[in-house]
């Protein structure tokens, strides 16, 4: 058959190219264009940077980081904010994932990394080598509450109250109807519909899933029989790719329940989770509270502020379903320029201004760190030196 030669049919096949780029050219955002911004940048740099000498030094060059995609949005805000302070520094962050970020940092390809998990002991060793003999810094600078979201438009209460145990049974498909006695017992006086429950999970591997299942496993008194994992352990259910896919799927059917970054919950109902004897809806303060209530992890130091999140906490007012992401950097760099740039950037991220910027719902909706944690973080950042 000579069809292809004898006839031309103009059918254009457009291959959809997925270009995942994080344009990090925030320094173009007309830095210090208004006198207003100028004065803020002056005051913040004066308060944050330890000596007045450093504040006058103009930093320049590139500052590259890579790692957790959970920090991507917050990092976008920080890049813009840092660009206002130091317009000559070209800061970029490649959201390649936590594992890849730690790998690249240890290999010396980046100056800092973002990671949802702390460095493993052998990684700490390798990172110490990479850091010219200095201990790596691990700073919990991104705290993001995860909301348990549900689609029950006719429900009259603001927050459905559910304990981890009940939620574990719902997501494990043991409780299949919204008017189940277990749910009714936790929501006295609420008229529950006889709708079937549709549990929704993330279809891609995600830090949100990992933190959510960690909490289910730790706080549900054994009702969650699966290992915590970034990949959802059950198959054969509804799921969505990325946070948006999750939101769309839960919004798509009445009776659906899922979990997502709290800032993206939108019009969907959010669960007040059981902590001790009370039920706590998510809020920035409650999320920061659980971090303060958690003990330091094994191997933590005044430079490695790693936290063993106490998921089963009973501390009043703490919201334990959170995702923590660390900023990882060196305490020793081989040249003053790198050290100053990293120091300035981390100081900005840890500052009230930086934390508030990320907390803006239009940026990342994260929970700002507490003052207590900030003091510890600032002390660690001050220890960055040239070796």
């Amino acid at each position, binding site marked *: 058959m000579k069809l292809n030669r004898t006839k031309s049919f103009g059918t254009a096949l457009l291959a959809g190219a997925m270009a995942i780029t994080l344009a990090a050219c925030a320094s173009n955002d007309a830095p210090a264009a208004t006198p207003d911004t100028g004065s803020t940048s002056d005051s913040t740099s004066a308060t944050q940077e330890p000596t007045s000498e450093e504040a006058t030094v103009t930093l320049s060059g590139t500052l590259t980081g890579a790692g957790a995609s959970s920090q991507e949005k917050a990092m976008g805000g920080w890049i813009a904010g840092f660009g206002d302070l130091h317009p000559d520094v070209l800061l970029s962050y490649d959201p390649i994932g936590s*594992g890849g970020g730690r790998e690249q940092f240890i290999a010396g390809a980046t100056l800092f990394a973002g990671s949802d998990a702390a460095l493993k002991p052998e990684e700490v060793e390798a990172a110490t080598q990479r850091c010219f003999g200095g201990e790596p810094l691990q700073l919990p600078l991104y705290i993001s509450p995860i909301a348990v979201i549900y689609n029950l438009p006719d429900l009259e209460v603001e927050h459905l109250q559910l304990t981890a145990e009940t939620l574990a049974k719902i997501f494990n498909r043991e409780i299949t109807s919204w008017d189940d006695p277990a749910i009714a017992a936790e929501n006295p006086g609420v008229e529950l519909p006889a709708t079937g429950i549709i549990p929704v999970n993330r279809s891609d591997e995600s830090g949100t899933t990992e933190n959510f299942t960690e909490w289910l496993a730790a706080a549900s008194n054994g009702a969650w029989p699966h290992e915590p994992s970034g990949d959802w352990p059950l198959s054969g259910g509804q799921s969505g790719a990325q946070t948006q896919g999750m939101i769309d*799927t839960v919004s798509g059917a009445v009776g659906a329940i899922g979990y997502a970054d709290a800032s993206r919950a939108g019009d969907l109902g959010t669960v007040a989770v059981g902590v001790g004897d009370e039920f706590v809806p998510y809020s920035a303060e409650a999320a920061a509270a659980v971090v303060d209530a958690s003990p330091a992890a094994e191997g933590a130091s005044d430079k490695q502020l790693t936290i063993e999140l106490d998921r089963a906490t009973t501390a009043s007012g703490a919201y334990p379903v959170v995702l923590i992401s660390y900023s990882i950097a060196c305490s020793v760099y081989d040249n003053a320029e790198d050290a100053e740039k990293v120091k300035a950037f981390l100081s900005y991220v840890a500052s009230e201004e930086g934390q508030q910027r990320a907390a803006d719902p239009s940026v990342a909706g994260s929970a700002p760190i507490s003052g207590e944690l900030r003091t510890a973080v600032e002390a660690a950042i001050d220890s960055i030196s040239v070796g």
Partner: protein
Amino acid sequence: MTVGTPPAPVAAAGPRAADRRTGSHVWGGRVFAGLSYGSGILILLVLAAVAVFLVVQALPALTADPTELEQISWFRAESLLGYVGPLVFGTVLAALLALAMAVPVSIGIALFISHYAPRRLAQGLGYLVDLLAAIPSVVYGLWGALWLIGVLDPVMTWLSSTLGFIPIFAGYQAPAKNVLTAAVVLAVMILPIITAVAREVFLQTPRLHEEAALALGATRWEMIRTAVLPFGRSGVISAAMLGLGRALGETMAVLMVLSPGLLFSFFLLKPGQHQTIAANIAAQFPEAAGLSVSVLIATGLALFVITFVVNFVARAIVARRKDFSGAN
């Protein structure tokens, strides 16, 4: 045939002009031959480069011990084959379902344009169908995820409640993020290419065949059945294979519409049963590093092989029917 013959050399030109023309003809011929050969070789080189890339990048996964593979959090199978198997099944199932829906509709549209519609309408309709092919797949994905899922929900609810005794229609769960919805989106996506090719083939039916059929007293439908369809059969098959190729490799639309799962399952309405190779790569790649990248590329290699096999089968079918079709 309708091939445009190159314009004949102008005989009326003067002898000098003719000489010059001959010279440029020789050069033009050489350059054109070179370009043609070059392009032909280039496509082979590109194909070889893709194949080599896939094999080299997939090698760590192909040679890895199952215990190493189990370190990957989303890898729950016993072996690499156990992981790729359901993906291949899901890919082929979604593509075949799409084909089953798209081919009859495409033939209908193509016949309408070529034999039923008034000329003016036919032309406009032809352009419209071609236009459908130019819509990026991510737009189809959005359309499927935000609109079609809601529209199909009552249909599938009815299907599951009335025909649920047939296993393939059992167990529907809202929202309609199942393989059947994905197949509907894919069917719409491959409709234009199948229609375009089928229309061209039907238009090439020798006028004499058609007139002979009509002269023997055939109705228009009988004429199409006896003259047009047999003539166009091989063309329609290759058109379907082109569509199948696109359906097999489609990524974004499936990613946005399907609740994935890795099972060998024929429950078309249940969520979390199937996943296609391309969508799986797109979903898992952003967080992948090291060996997990190799595993994903190994699944890509499997897709590459499938598309190759599909094309070979299509060629074989077309070649076998060559003698009867009269298209040559």
